[in-house]
C-alpha cells in the first residue's frame, strides 16, 4: 500500500555532505535548503519559477529549487552556490572560474540573483566542450532564464565569456 503523508524525512547529499531533514511534504527544496539545512546561499525571489534566483543542481542538472518539493530529492545529490568553490589542497578553497569571473567583471550589484546565475552558468560551462570558443547564442541561452534587475546583463555576459576563456585555458 502506498503511504500518503503530510510529513517525511528526506535524506540527500548536499555539496558532497550527507544531510537529513524532517519536512512537511509541501516544503519546496529552496526552503528546505535555507530553513532546514541552514544553507542560505540559495535565494528565493519569485517563488514560482520565473526569476531563477533559487537555481541549484540536482544530480548535476540546473533546476528551480522553488519548483521541486524537498520530498522529491530523496536520495539525490544537490549542489548549491556554497558547493561551487573547490578545495585548493592547501587547507583552503579557490573560487569556481565563474565566481572569479563575476568578481573580475563586476557582474553583480545587489547580489540577490547572483547565486542562481553562478550555479546555472557553472553547470552550463562544465557541460560544454571547454576547447570550443563560446558563441553569443550560447551566452544568451545561459543567462536568459535568470532575471537580474541591477546590471542590465552586460557585465554578466562579459563574465560568462571571461569564465569560458579561463576554462578553455585550464583545459589545455
Amino acid at each position, binding site marked *: 500500500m*502506498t*503511504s*500518503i*503523508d*503530510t510529513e*517525511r524525512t528526506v535524506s540527500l547529499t548536499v555539496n558532497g555532505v550527507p544531510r537529513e531533514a524532517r519536512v*512537511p*511534504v*509541501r*516544503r*519546496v527544496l529552496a*526552503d528546505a535548503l535555507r530553513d532546514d539545512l541552514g544553507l542560505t546561499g540559495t535565494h528565493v525571489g519569485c*517563488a*514560482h*519559477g*520565473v526569476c*531563477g534566483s533559487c*537555481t541549484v543542481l540536482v544530480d548535476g*542538472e*540546473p*533546476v*528551480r529549487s*522553488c*519548483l*521541486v*518539493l524537498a*520530498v*522529491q530529492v530523496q536520495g539525490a545529490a544537490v549542489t548549491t552556490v556554497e558547493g561551487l568553490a573547490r578545495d585548493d589542497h592547501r587547507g583552503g578553497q579557490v573560487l569556481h572560474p565563474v565566481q572569479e569571473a563575476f568578481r573580475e567583471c563586476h557582474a553583480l550589484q545587489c547580489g540577490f540573483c547572483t547565486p542562481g546565475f553562478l550555479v*546555472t552558468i557553472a553547470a*552550463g560551462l562544465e557541460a560544454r566542450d571547454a576547447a570550443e570558443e563560446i558563441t553569443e547564442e550560447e551566452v*544568451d*541561452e545561459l543567462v*536568459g*532564464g535568470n532575471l537580474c534587475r541591477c546590471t542590465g546583463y552586460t557585465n554578466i555576459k562579459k563574465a560568462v565569456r571571461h569564465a569560458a576563456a579561463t576554462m578553455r585555458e585550464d583545459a589545455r
Partner: protein
Amino acid sequence: MKPPPFRYADPGSVDEALDVLAAEGDGAKVLAGGQSLLPLLAMRLAAPATLVDVNRVPGLDRVEASAGGVRVGALVRHAGLLRDTAAAEVQPLLARATADVAHPAIRNRGTTVGSIAHADPSGELTAVLALTGGSVTVARPSGRAEVGWRDLFVGPLETSLSGPAVVVDAFFPALAERSGTAFAEIARRKGDYAVCGAAVVVTLDEDRRVAAVRAAYLSVGPVPEVHDLTEAVAGKPVDSADWAAAGALARTLVDPDTDLHATADYRRLLVGVLTERTLAEAAAEAAGRTAA
C-alpha cells in the same frame, strides 16, 4: 507564496497511482515535472488535497522512435526529448518546438506529456500533438485507451479526462514523405509564454507542387487549433508558391482574444507573419526531401 498544505504519495507503479487517485477522489492531482503545477500551487490558483507523484514509476522515461512515429513516456523531460536524435529524425517538429519551451533549467525538470496533460493553449507540444494528429495513452482502473488530441483538449487548462486517470505517454505520428515542418513563436522574452506561435507542415507531390499545407497555432484560442491552408497554394510549384497568400488565409480563420499581453488584432497579424515565415521554411525542407 508557499504551496498550500496537501497530502503526498509517490507510488511505485501506474496501478498503485490509480489506486491512490481512486481512493483520494477529485481532490487528487498527478505530479510529474511540476513546472506548471507547482507555480499554480505557489500562486494559490490550485489547491489539490493530494499530490500523486509519478516520478518513481519505472518505465515511463522512454522515448521510442519507430517508422510510424515517436512515443514519449510520461517522465521524459523536455531536455531529454530535445537531445533525442532518433525522435528528431522521425518527427523534426518535436525538437524544433521543444527548443522554445521555457529555459534550460525548466526543461531539465518539466515533462512533454505533463505539459500536454496541463492543456495550456500556449503550450508548444500541445500544438505539435494537434498538428501531427497525435494521441495520448490514458491508464484508468478499467485499462488503457488511446485518446486522440481532438477528444483530449476541452478548454484552457482543461482536458476531457476525469476520475482516476494517468496519461502514460503521448504519440506523435512521423513526418510524411515529401514533407517539411517549421516552428516559430513570438514571446515578450525568450523562453516566456508565446504571444503567438505557429507549427506548420507542407507536403509536396511528386512534381514538387504543393499538395497539402496545415498549420497549428499557440495562444490564439482556448485549445490548440489546426487549420488547413492548402487552398491558398494548392498545385503551385514549391519555388513559386505564394506563402503570403496562405498567411492571409490563416488570418481569416483564427479568432484570437485580447489579453494583457496582446490585442486580438495584433495576434491575428502575428498569425499571418508567422504562417508566411514558417511555411517558406517548411517548404524548403519539403523540397529538400523530394527528389527533383
